[in-house]
């Protein structure tokens, strides 16, 4: 059971990977590089984001590069989940693989900056506590839930390999 609860940080459409993790800083480690996350559209993002915050975006969040440094930077800064009307494909897979929950929600744009949000991935619902509204969001197929519940693909594979070796 993954419990996701936090304050919403609002973004618009087409927030691409060059915005999330600018290429010029990719030679640095995630700790240093994440300081520059989102700075093209939100100069102080790295400073204002707090542990547990949830990104609430418009359409097509994460378009562009295959760089996993994008979800890794968001995760490192404390983001606990990303909500978008829909996601760019590679970013979506990367989030799951690094254990950052992602949900698609047609009503994502109703979420306001600073709203208190609660996401139930299993039920496929987003509860906007501030606005007292509930939105439907995507449910994840079992094989993806398994990756997320393990905390990412790396952890899942590690568990599997341990189990196989013990047999």
């Amino acid at each position: 059971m993954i419990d996701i609860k936090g304050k919403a940080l609002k973004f618009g459409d087409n927030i691409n990977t060059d915005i999330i993790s600018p290429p010029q800083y990719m030679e640095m480690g995630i700790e240093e590089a994440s300081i520059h996350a989102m700075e093209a559209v939100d100069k102080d993002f790295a400073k204002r984001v707090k542990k547990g915050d949830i990104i609430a975006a418009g359409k097509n969040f994460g378009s562009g590069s295959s760089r996993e440094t994008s979800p890794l930077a968001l995760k490192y800064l404390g983001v606990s989940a990303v909500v978008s009307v829909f996601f760019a494909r590679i970013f979506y897979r990367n989030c799951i693989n690094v254990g950052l929950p992602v949900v698609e929600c047609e009503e994502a744009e109703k979420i306001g900056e600073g709203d208190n949000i609660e996401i139930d991935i299993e039920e496929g619902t987003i509860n906007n506590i501030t606005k007292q509204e509930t939105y439907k969001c995507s449910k994840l197929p079992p094989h993806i839930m398994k990756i997320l519940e393990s905390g990412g693909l790396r952890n899942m594979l590690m568990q599997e390999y341990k189990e196989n070796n013990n047999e």
Partner: protein
Amino acid sequence: MGKTMSEKIIARAAGVDSVSADDIVWVNVDRAMMDDILGPRVQIADGMKEIHDKVWDPEKVVIISDHYTPPASEKQAEIVNFTRKWAAAHGIDKYYEFQGPCHQIMAETGNVIPGSIVLGTDSHTCMGGAFGAFASGIGSTEMMGILITGKTWLRVPRTIKVRWEGILGEGVMAKDVSLYTIGSIGHAGATYMTVEYTGDTIWNMSLDERMCISNMAVEMGAKAGLMEADEKTIDFLKAHDADLTNMMAVTSDRDASFYTVKEYAADRLEPMVACPHAVDNVHPVSELTNQKVDQAYLGSCTGGRYNDLKAASRILKGKKIHKGVRLLVSPASTEVWKRADKDGILADLVESGATVLGPTCGVCVGVHSGLIAGGETCISSSNRNFIGRMGSKQGNIYLGSPMTVAASALQGQIADPRDYL
């Protein structure tokens, strides 16, 4: 009900008789490609060390150092060094460096075969679709899983069929076809889907031109940008010593189910430009007047192949670029370089005022060799114009064909190449 190319290729890779769009299946991967920037150093080396530090089949793994080559800083040098050593330590014989952007090298080394599954840690891996391979970009952790198990899961994509008919006019290139298609379908219009390109216009093109189009399928959100393999494809692969034993040239059945079919007329197409800061912000070059340029970039896995350099040299030969403009040229590979050099193309470009760089991803992704400053504008034959990509977030990137880049370098403003033919 017939099947699409994607359904046929994925069914074979999954070891089942048939799959349909939206099915989720586990597939065997034929080629796993890594670059330097998102290769072993990101999650992969650490993760494998922890889980199982052995590649499932070193013959099926290709590693190409291309983004940080030649390194512009000590950090970049360390990353390339790490990548090289990791490849050697894991028995990867197919390691290439300093030879050009990975997708071009994958094609030239015969690693992209019709009907195969090619996954790489770079979003433009979809370029392999020009060879009828199901090729797509993935992240590093997913690559780590593949390197250990040889498998990954795919949701079988729906297919948008894009049909281009007719003959392109003088001064209009494959890049214009690509940009027009992206402008029409939109930055996210093919998200999770395959774009399958077909029609006379495509079949009349060389592989150089087809690669330019498939390369940018991801700019519509697509998972793959497929084209059927034909005689030209086979000729290219044979000329590059590809092993075609397991190839499977597939076509979509007439009664296959398509999400939508788009039809475009090549005869009427004008040179197109993608304006800042979105690849689908596409306008005819004729609409852009008085847009000054500081830098013109001719290169990358999208616009640095032989036919691109040749087309640009047609415009630049015997002329001088505009004062104050810098024209940077990065041939898409050593092979392209040698051919363009032999034919005098590079000399013509240099004579016009160009600076020729090594084959590299550096300029396109703003990590070395030609970043732009605040307030500067670059016209580029590469594939992405996102804010800040080539340097300053106060800079502007326009995308155009190699001929548009050449014409703009001459005029000092974004220019219509047809005025220079």
